[in-house]
């Protein structure tokens, strides 16, 4: 029986090794897309998300399509077609530019505004950090003062008890 099962296993293993694609081995679609839920993001995640987004938006400021050379493979009527196409496209481009220039200006301003707001947030964060440091330093001093005060009070109590009767231990 063991030999039979071994034979079956080897045959399946051979077939398994022939399959290159993991998706085929798993016999299902394995890759999916996952939408972002920004509200769940931590500060660190938000920072890298903002940086990536701004970099990506920056590349899209000028949304005009890249100009491609106009050519024709027709021998006789090719030249007039090219001339006509050029004329039409140029006319259209001039007309489109009226709108697109405005859009590009708006895009550029939007990106600048994002960056300005980001800078302001950064400055505010720095300021907040400084204030937190100051508060933290005050808290530390306060803790030490409080402990000193407790010791002083205990010593006074000890002195008082010394006058009145047997000494009470305050420290181990």
């Amino acid at each position: 029986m063991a030999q039979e099962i071994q034979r079956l296993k080897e045959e399946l293993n051979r077939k398994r090794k022939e399959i290159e694609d993991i998706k085929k081995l798993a016999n299902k679609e394995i890759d999916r897309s996952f939408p972002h839920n920004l509200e769940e993001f931590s500060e660190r995640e938000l920072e890298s998300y903002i940086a990536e987004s701004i970099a990506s938006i920056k590349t899209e400021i000028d949304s005009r399509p890249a100009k491609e050379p106009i050519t024709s493979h027709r021998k006789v009527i090719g030249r007039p077609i090219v001339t006509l196409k050029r004329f039409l496209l140029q006319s259209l481009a001039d007309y489109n530019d009226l709108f697109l220039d405005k859009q590009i200006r708006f895009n550029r301003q939007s990106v600048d505004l994002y960056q300005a707001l980001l800078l302001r947030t950064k400055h505010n964060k720095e300021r907040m950090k400084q204030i937190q440091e100051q508060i933290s330093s005050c808290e530390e001093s306060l803790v030490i003062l409080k402990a000193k005060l407790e010791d002083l009070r205990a010593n006074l109590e000890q002195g008082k008890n010394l006058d009145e009767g047997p000494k009470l231990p305050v420290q181990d």
Partner: protein
Amino acid sequence: MSKEERIIQELAKETNEIAAAQGIQAAYNHVLRAEVALHLRRPSLAIYDHSFHFIGGAQRYGLTMASALQDRFDITLVVNHEVSHRDFVDWYGLDLSSCRIKVIKLPFFEERGLRHLDPAIIPPETRNPFHLVSRESGGYDIFVNNSMNEMVYPLSGLSVLVCHFPERRPQTYFYADRYTHVVCNSLYTAEWVKKKWRLTSPQQIYPPVDMENAAAGLPKKKLILSVARFEVEGSKRQKEMVEAFLSLNEKWPEIAKDWSFILAGGSNPDNPYLAGLEKMIAAKRGQNIELKVNLPVDELNRLYQEATLFWHMCGLKHEDPSGIEHFGMTTVEAMQNRAVPIVYDGGGLREIVDHGVNGFRAKSKAGLLEYTLKLFRDGKLVRALAQSAHKKAQTYTRAKFEAGIRAFFGDMLNTYISALDTGSPE
């Protein structure tokens, strides 16, 4: 027809049906399972970690797991870089000689000369370099991915993803939800696995901590100890702890002068963070502060034994949950040696230290100082907390870990076998 012939016939029929409906891999898994159910061989188990060639807590977790299971399973350690059985003895004291080591080189990282295989650097448009490991996973009964690398697709009949923290959110090549089980090192990690990966019921098994041998008898000194790696980004917060101790030196020298503070930890050469710490201590004349880098284990053990207090503030001023200690092995090591922990109030440290019972938890440097001063001035409290700390630390021993692992895999194996209605030969 004999019973054996009937079994073979049924198995062949089932395998053909599975191959037609679910593909060759599923059919192969079915035959593997039948072999185990019929007691023709021991179950095979692969443990993969792309960082087995480095020393680390997560790696210790996976290898101790292998050590606990090697008498019941045929274990293969799947690695991406050469590493030897001798290394595992030297680094962790683990004899894994009955485990096989299989090296699978990943061209994406080899071509770039990268020894540290960081899945985060793989662009979404690149072909997944870990598919070579995914393919390997299909050759075993159980595949364990110990490397916090959710980009490996498990093809085995049973699979386990060990997660020490869900670093990345689901994105391209995310397969964590394709594993049969997800095991976390702490409740904190399990909570974040639920939140970040939307997985409903991750299992939780605490890591093994074994510093108990060192607990025998050296007298305690007025010593505060910190043990943590000197990370270049300063994520373990040694700078803040030094600042706190310097502040104590400055504001209450009479009480601080009898105490010393030692910060021990590993570091790479030319570490700017470490250099900054040295500079800071020298500038403020912190003579009672010492940095001990890359100490041998026996020296570290001695420090644990001598320390009265243990500071660990990893997580302080961190907004990102991944920057907070996911568990806190060194804190447990200190507790096993009866040092009273004062730790950051967050992450896995909350599970280890019960505030006011076996140590203290602080949210800030002021809190750290407050509880330290309390303990400086109350020896009775120190002794009581140290005793409780030692007791609590027994929750995380290697014996407990191994028992948990054996039970977990034992249950899994029973379900694996019983799900197959083949019946054993008489």
